[in-house]
């Protein structure tokens, strides 16, 4: 009886040892495969390009202040600002328009609409 118990016990321990080592080796394999995935992700990252930043567009209040300053000396030009678009009407000399438009552009409008501005 005692001999059988002892053999049983040894078998039990052996089984336990085997199972544990199997689990450990399995865990090791899992870890290894995870590491491989991580390495792949790192390799892919430099290939992605940085997105272009959006264009800077000023708000209406800021644009109105800038447009007031810019058009102060052109009494025949009427300017309106809505939705960041500067709309000009009235009339202006060609030489003056060539000075004024670059200044209006530098205020960061969405666009400058001069379709109804008469250039003389």
């Amino acid at each position, binding site marked *: 009886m005692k001999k059988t118990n002892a053999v049983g016990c040894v078998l039990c321990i052996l089984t336990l040892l085997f199972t544990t080592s199997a689990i450990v080796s399995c865990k090791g394999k899992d870890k290894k495969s995870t590491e491989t995935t991580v390495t792949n992700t790192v390799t892919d990252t430099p290939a992605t390009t940085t997105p*272009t930043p959006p*264009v800077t567009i000023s708000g209406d209040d800021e644009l109105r202040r800038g447009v007031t*300053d*810019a058009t102060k000396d052109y009494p025949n030009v009427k300017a309106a600002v809505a939705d960041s678009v500067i709309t000009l009407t009235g009339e202006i000399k060609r030489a*003056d*328009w060539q000075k004024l438009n670059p200044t209006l552009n530098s205020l960061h409008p969405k666009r*400058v609409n*001069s379709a109804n501005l008469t250039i003389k």
Partner: protein
Amino acid sequence: MSLQDKYKTLIDTANQSGVSGLQVREQNNVLYIDGSAPSAAVKDKLWSIYNQIDPDYKSGDVVINVNATAASGSKAVVSTNSGNLNIRKGPGTDQEIIGKAAHGESVTILSEANDQWSLIKNAKGDEGYVYKQYLTAQ
């Protein structure tokens, strides 16, 4: 024709003229060209090409924000249509007028407040802000 094709000469010139930080972007059917020009002459050249492609800028499909920064201590000539240029306490037409600079007068640029206003000193020694549109780099 895309805007980049229509304004190809303008974009190519900006690329070849040493404009730093040049960005050419198309957004909602408007072409935006941003950057810093190495000189006022380069800025003028770009605007001249723009005017050739789109006479009097009537299409309004481009916004060019390529400005030249004048070096501190450089000289500029006042180019008002006829009268004096107001020298103001701060950068804005709502600011107090503290001096005048005559048409054709040479002034010294001390710094630039923004793309529209420069801090200058006139021949008399008055220091204040003037509208850049009326200054021509010397």
